């Protein structure tokens, strides 16, 4: 069956012969480094402590995903330290330092040879225990990805990038386990259709898979065109299923699941042999390394140790890349640990990376648009991003960019297009997060406003009730009280001044004033803030000095602090009209300068 090609893409020269060579061993290094961080950057929950002896497969940490995928010890030995280690993408994380002791004893995981009788949930649990993460490069916890029922399961055997040969090497050596693993994964997700996709140039691997398929009717081998980035999840689905994954969604939502062939093989080992994920195949390539090839590497091995196993650097070594030549991460040094995502380590030579020409302005040649597998218009995105029009770039699909690097590869002006898109995307993400934060803050502010209003209304009701009670008392009291009333205005300013002085001296006691009258809440807030500033001075000064520097009596009075103040019920009868009209006003005030 012939398939349509993905739009765009690159037809690159075939990988160097070494990439297609046999599997090579990488000796167990003296130390393994296990950063306690999962693929999405969140920390792992540590289970083991320095000094502890572990077996191969003992969980050292748990992931924060729903399946709680374990980080198994890659070898038996002793945890000797917990130290910060540089991560490939920059930054550091605490890492466990494991010293293998040589016997390489495995922790007891019951093999489940009767996997066909096990429930999908039990199988998923086993995969999480075994620490199975996707081996395709993204490092997504496999058990989580298997949490959906899908119609089609695709095993991705198309290498993600040129120079990488780890999948092909695995297929040639262990096709039977890959195919059996495919059947196992298909059972977990209840897939009706299982497709093992290989590049059409992988003849030997295809023969091995075809032979293994004889035992598993219902599974299908599908050669796909050798075009970069055919190994991308969305591109593979496009070609194999003839459908596109809608923008912003993920494949299981449309009933398709893609797993790397190595993940299937590791799943098989975990279930049927009871083995945790402790090794992976890493392609080592480039002119800068003496013996390129596909190495079977214990997870946690340093790049340094892998390169040493591959014969060391050559004189040409100029750039160290974790991953492939088009999407890989350039490493600043080689003391970086290899985890389950590390499909390749490249040591490129000076000749490989030397620019062919200086960077020039874009001439809109459209080569990038022709190469883009997502059918973006990279030259327009560049123009918009250079002009600072992030929204315009987003409208033209900046978020759909898969950062495959095809555009930058073909650009005759040598423009670092992908860098520009990465910056734009992270800026978009930052803005999105900021907007979410602002929305949250607004929601919080509005909720607080409502609460304050409600509380204020309750207060007013309480005060009114109390005042009514007082009034009733007063009505029965002597009419002599009315004689004092004309003096109320002159007495009034003193009252809040006393209350705020009390607050300044001891602001732990708002209750007694607040419960008495509504107004002091204003004076209290102000003086609380200012008193904090002037606390040192206030300590030395007399309590009487504080009100002058904080709330001037006049201002307090103008604020509507009414005369019927604390402990002077005698004046109350003079001011009721005034007091009833005012309370809502001060209630609004404290909320405005809310942080």
């Amino acid at each position: 069956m012939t398939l349509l090609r993905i739009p765009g893409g690159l037809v690159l020269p075939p990988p160097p012969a070494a990439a297609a060579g046999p599997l090579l061993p990488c000796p167990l290094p003296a130390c393994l480094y296990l950063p306690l961080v999962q693929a999405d950057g969140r920390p792992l929950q540590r289970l083991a402590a320095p000094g502890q002896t572990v077996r191969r497969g003992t969980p050292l940490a748990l992931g924060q995903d729903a399946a709680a995928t374990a980080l198994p010890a890659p070898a038996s030995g002793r945890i000797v330290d917990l130290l910060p280690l540089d991560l490939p993408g920059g930054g550091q994380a605490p890492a466990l330092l494991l010293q293998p002791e040589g016997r390489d004893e495995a922790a007891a995981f019951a093999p489940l040879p009767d996997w066909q009788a096990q429930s999908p949930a039990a199988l998923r649990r086993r995969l999480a225990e075994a620490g199975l993460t996707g081996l395709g490069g993204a490092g997504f916890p496999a058990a989580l990805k298997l949490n959906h029922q899908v119609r089609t399961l695709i095993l991705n055997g198309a290498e993600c990038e040129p120079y990488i040969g780890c999948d092909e090497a695995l297929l040639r050596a262990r096709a039977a386990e890959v195919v059996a693993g495919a059947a196992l994964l298909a059972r977990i997700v209840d897939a009706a259709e299982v497709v093992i996709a290989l590049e059409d140039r992988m003849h030997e691997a295809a023969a091995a898979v075809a032979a293994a398929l004889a035992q598993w009717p219902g599974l299908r081998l599908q050669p796909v065109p050798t075009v970069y980035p055919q190994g991308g999840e969305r591109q593979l689905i496009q070609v194999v299923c003839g459908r596109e994954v809608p923008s912003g969604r993920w494949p299981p939502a449309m009933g398709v699941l893609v797993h790397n062939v190595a993940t299937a093989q590791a799943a098989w080992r975990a279930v049927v042999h009871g083995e945790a994920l402790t090794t992976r195949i890493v392609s080592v390539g480039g002119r800068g390394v003496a013996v390129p090839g596909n190495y079977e590497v214990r997870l946690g091995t340093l790049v340094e140790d892998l390169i040493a196993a591959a014969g060391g650097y050559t004189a040409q070594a100029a750039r160290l890349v974790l991953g492939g030549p088009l999407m890989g991460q350039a490493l600043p040094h080689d003391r970086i640990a290899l985890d389950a995502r590390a499909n390749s380590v490249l040591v490129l030579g000076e000749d490989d990376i030397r620019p062919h020409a200086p960077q020039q302005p874009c001439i809109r040649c459209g080569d990038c648009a022709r190469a883009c597998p997502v059918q973006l218009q990279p030259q327009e995105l560049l123009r918009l991003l250079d002009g600072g029009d992030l929204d315009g770039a987003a409208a033209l699909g900046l978020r759909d960019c898969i950062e495959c690097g095809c555009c930058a590869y073909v650009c005759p002006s040598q423009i670092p297009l992908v860098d520009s898109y990465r910056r734009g995307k992270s800026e978009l993400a930052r803005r999105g997060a900021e907007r979410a934060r602002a929305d949250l803050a607004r929601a919080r502010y509005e909720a607080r406003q409502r609460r304050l209003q409600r509380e204020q209304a309750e207060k007013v009701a309480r005060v009114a009730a109390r005042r009514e009670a007082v009034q009733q008392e007063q009505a029965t009291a002597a009419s002599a009280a009315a004689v004092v009333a004309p003096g109320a205005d002159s007495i009034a300013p003193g009252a809040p001044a006393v209350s705020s002085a009390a607050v300044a001296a001891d602001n732990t006691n708002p209750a007694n004033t607040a419960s008495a009258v509504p107004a002091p809440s204003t004076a209290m807030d102000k003086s609380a803030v200012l008193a904090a500033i002037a606390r040192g001075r206030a300590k030395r000064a007399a309590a009487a000095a504080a009100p002058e520097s904080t709330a001037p009596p006049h201002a307090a009075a103008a604020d509507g602090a009414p005369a019927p103040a604390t402990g002077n019920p005698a004046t109350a009868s003079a001011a009721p009209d005034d007091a009833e009209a005012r309370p809502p006003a001060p209630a609004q005030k404290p909320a405005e300068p809310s942080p």
Partner: protein
Amino acid sequence: MKTFATAGAPHLRAAASVRRVMADVLLALLPGIAVHVWAFGPGLLLQLGLAAGFALAFEAALLRLRGGPVRAGLEDLSALVTAVLFALCIPPLCPWWVSALGLLAALGLAKHAYGGLGANLFNPAMVGYAVVLVAFPRELSQWTGAGLTPPDLATAAAAVFAGQLPPHWDTLASATPLDALRQAAAAQRTLAEIRSQPVFGHAGAAGWELIALAYALGGLYLLWRRVIGWQVPAGVILSVLLLTGAAWLFDAERNPPPLQHLLSGGLMLAAWFVAADPVTGCTSPRGRLLFGAGVAVLTLALRRWGLHADGVAFAVLLMNAAAPLIDEFTRPRIYGHGRHD
């Protein structure tokens, strides 16, 4: 621990450069230049030299004026491509100052005023040509008849540098086939009556038809090298064949046959080199097809109703102005957008 310098991905790049693109364009123009010299004499070589000199001088001066890197700007060969395209448009016996003014307009007005390489809205060579065509119609019509003995280098030099047209210029000068066609049409003569004139050659334009074929050859080379896409030339050529074919079938007495249209004037140069200029054209595949079709339609309209015998330059400039709008409406559908299932 060994340390390395880091850089963003990708870590490999195709061996492509602007210089290589421009060099390919220059190479592809060689067959056209050779046939041109054969048909109209070595005057073209003088014009090419003059144009190249002026273009590089102006480019250097303008780059320095704008504070850009002069050396890198000259080495990308883009100014040279402009110069050659311009020289191929003007008559070989044009005075030297036509070239100077044309390239000043091309590089100063069309290219650097807009921000230099890649930022120009209009094709520099066509702006330069349009300026001198409008400003100096007499000098721009000094074509000799193809097939006659072309003026030799000394005669051409006298005309170019001293403004001395060769003796017996009246007998040498000849209207271009398109001019002849216009005059005939204006005189209400049928095609059959005028086709016997030597100026029309085999397919409708003596000399020009071979030059056009040589341009097409160069264009095929660019296509093979993937310097240009097939869309623009296909858009131009198919539209011309379709429109003129229909008109010709409708009334062969008044409408010239499709091949005559296609192979006369600057249509082939435009189809393969000028309209296919990426900077000033469309970038999406459908946009490029439309762009080519637009150039063809406008050229035919200008030939039929315009003031000048050949309107290719104006057609290209008009389409340059329309290109951003066409791009806006012809973007390909992005993966995962629109066609959801």
